[in-house]
Every structure is written in structure tokens, then in C-alpha cells.
């Protein structure tokens, strides 16, 4: 095969959690495996691998997306945030704190994806109703909690983020 621009690997430039990475990747490499296996950021989980469960949710340019359904080459030039990059080392994002305070997790498998989706929600809607929270979580499945504590964790975080916004 000889296409004029064809090659086995493609160079990409991706900023992940504020750090610039240059890499040569196979076009078929999925973004979630680039993050987990090439960068060692294993906080992003693979649940279903079929775009259903949301365990692989990350932010691309500030938007929650399922990284098992994005090619690494599509992330060229994009700013990515994963669960590891939500808060500075040793601290927790209010949504992470909320999940701890309100027991928003049991096995924890779905949690990174839940948190990334919740952060995206609270960035666009600072005081969501319970219904809006549940609607926003449509793309994230949890097999343990029954969702009630997850919703409470997000409500807790929303409140915390609003009050810290007012005080600062």
C-alpha cells in the first residue's frame, strides 16, 4: 500500500492534565488505551468497550466524552483532562469529596467516569435539579449503588462549589 500521506503511525500532540505529550500512534489506537497504556493514566476505566457505560469518560476541550469511542489521532491538538488531573496532587475536587462524603461509590469501577460527567454538568449548570442530574448521568452505568448516593454526592458538590464561589 502506498498512499501519498499514508504511514503506519501518525504523530500526535496532546495536552493531558496540563502536560504536553508527543507520540507516534497507530491510527486504530483508541484514546482510552493511549491514556492507560501509553501514558500510564489508569484512572480512566474501560467497562463495556462499546460506548454504553461511561466508565471511560474524560474531558476533551472541556467536554465529557467516552474515550473508548474516540481514536487517539482525533485527539491531536486537543486538551484532555482525566480523573487524575481534576485537582492538584494531594487534594480532591469538590465532586470527588462529595463522592467520599456521601458514599457515592461501592466497588469504584464506574466512579472516575461518573465524576468526569458530573464535573462537566456542574460546569454548565451550577444548581441542577435532581432530575437534571439523573438526566446528565444517562450515559454512565453503575452496577452497585443504585444511583441514589451518586445523585446525593453531586448535590453535595454543587452546594460546596456554589458556596466557595460566593466566598471567593
Amino acid at each position, binding site marked *: *500500500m502506498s*498512499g501519498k*500521506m*499514508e*504511514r503506519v503511525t*501518525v504523530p500526535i500532540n496532546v495536552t493531558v492534565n496540563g502536560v504536553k505529550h508527543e507520540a507516534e500512534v*497507530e*491510527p*486504530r*489506537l*483508541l484514546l482510552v*488505551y493511549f491514556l492507560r497504556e501509553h501514558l500510564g493514566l489508569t484512572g480512566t476505566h474501560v467497562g463495556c*468497550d*462499546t*460506548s454504553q457505560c*461511561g466508565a471511560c*469518560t474524560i474531558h*476533551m476541550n472541556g*467536554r*465529557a*466524552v*467516552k474515550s473508548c*469511542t*474516540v*481514536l487517539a*489521532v*482525533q485527539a*491531536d*491538538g486537543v486538551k484532555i483532562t482525566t480523573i487524575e488531573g481534576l485537582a492538584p496532587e494531594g487534594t480532591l475536587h469538590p465532586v470527588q469529596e462529595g463522592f467520599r462524603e456521601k458514599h457515592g461509590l461501592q466497588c469504584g469501577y464506574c466512579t472516575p467516569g461518573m465524576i468526569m*460527567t458530573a464535573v*462537566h*454538568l456542574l460546569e454548565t449548570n451550577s444548581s441542577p435539579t435532581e432530575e437534571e442530574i439523573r438526566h*446528565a448521568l*444517562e*450515559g*454512565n452505568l453503575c452496577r452497585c449503588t443504585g444511583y441514589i448516593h451518586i445523585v446525593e454526592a453531586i448535590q453535595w458538590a454543587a452546594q460546596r462549589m456554589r458556596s466557595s464561589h460566593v466566598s471567593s
Partner: protein
Amino acid sequence: MFPASFGYFAARSLEEALELLTEYGEDAKLLAGGHSLIPAMKLRLATPRYLIDLGRVPGLSGVRIDGEALAIGALTAHADVASSAIIRQRLPGLADAASVIGDVQVRNRGTIGGSVAHADPAADLPVILTALGASFVLASPSGKRTVAAEDFFIDFYTTALAPNEVLTGIRVPLPPSGAGAAYAKLPHPASGYVVVSAGALIIRQPSGQCASARVALGGMAGRPLRAGATETALQGKALTPQVIAAAAAKAAEGSDPIEDAYASAEYKRQVAAVYARRAIESAAKRAGQKI
């Protein structure tokens, strides 16, 4: 799960995308949001030898008013259609349909052009766009042509797009004042895709009569289906709940719905009447009718 190997090109302009498409023809597939194509490639249902990524082609996304129509770039994400101020104000029925696609993450990646080009019979946007009388702008090396929704959707996953064409934009005629549009969907409980859905555009006279109606159904055939008997039954009538219910009861007339394990043909016919009624009632309300 990962796709079979392929060669990848990130097109930097529409011209480059068209050149590559001409060069690689049937061996190549265009990539937009990838939210239909990548799952299909992971399952090896699709094994293109080349992908031509439209993601970095400038000028293909965004919503603007162009004369008497709303012009929506093919690469506009579902989330941006759903939240666009112009669309919410002038065509809230379209925003409704975009906001019930999949989930937040899917809406952040999937594009209106990808949904239209993919022509999944269980998709949302083809249905509302058919009801709204939208047309699609197709670019090829020899120029551009515009194809009406009715002529564009042919059958399951089959459209009027030629192998050397790129869908660049969607044009939706702006409804006159006194018009309203709406979308109502019965989602599959597991997949969230359409079981049956209905889109309606009602143009209402100040007297409360229906000047014209367009009603399209999803999930009933390989392509969006116009509910002709319903449209005729509304024409010239007062938009009362009784008239709307009687017209909607005819929605499935003449159709031969596709059956699956979840929904039989008979069930779909019944449900089509219910969802057509809901869409028409909401559209009539938006057109100013008190119901």
C-alpha cells in the same frame, strides 16, 4: 476491542477531503464524530482501508441564519444543536430532537452531518429534519448540489450521497410566524435509539385553523416516513384535540413497520398514533394554539 488497521488522513480543507475521497473512493470512509463509525469498526462491521477525518476542516460547524433558512454546518455537534440560542428560539423542535439523542457524552461528539449521512432508521435527526422540510448541501469535486430530505433518505443506511461527495451543511427553512414544530420519541429502554418517533411542523392561521401540516415518523421503515393521511386530515381544520387525535390515528396508514424483538409491527402502528398526536399537539401549541 479495536478496529482493523487503516490508513488515516486528517483533511485540512474541504478541497483536500474531496481530493482524498476521489483518490481512495470506495476504500475510504469519512470520519466526523465517529460515534456510529468507530463502534461499527470495533465490531468489524465496517473495515474501511482509509479514514478521512473531517474533524479539522474549518468552516463546517456552527449555526447561522442565511436568508430564509437556518444553515447548520455538518460538523456541528448534537450538543451544540440542542443548546444553540438561534435554534431554541426559531426551531425548538429541532433542539428537542438533538437533546434526546443518546446521552451527554454522545451528544458532545456526534455530529448532525454524521447522523444524516449514516441514515440509521432508528436515528432522531432524520425524522425531525424531514418534518421541517430540510435539505442537504453535498459537495463534490465538480461543485455543490442541494437535495431535499425526502430525496436524500433512500433506505436503511442508504442515502443519495455519492461516493465522492461530502455533506457540508443542512438548510432548514425558517417557519413563518404562526408556525410550530415539535418532536416526540419513544426510546428503546436499553439502547436509547428510536422505537417510534414523530416530528411535526404545523402552520396555523390566526383563526386557529391548520394552514398546513408536515408529519414524519421514525422507526417505521428504512427511512423517515411522511404520515400523508394525517397531514391531509389536519389541512384546513380547527386544531382541536379531537381533530388532532383523529388525524394522528391515521399516522401508520399504509405503512409496513419493521418488527424486532422489542416491538411488533402492530405495536408500532399503535404507538405511532400516540407519538404523532403528542408531536402535533406540542407543535400546535408552539404555533399559538391553546389546547
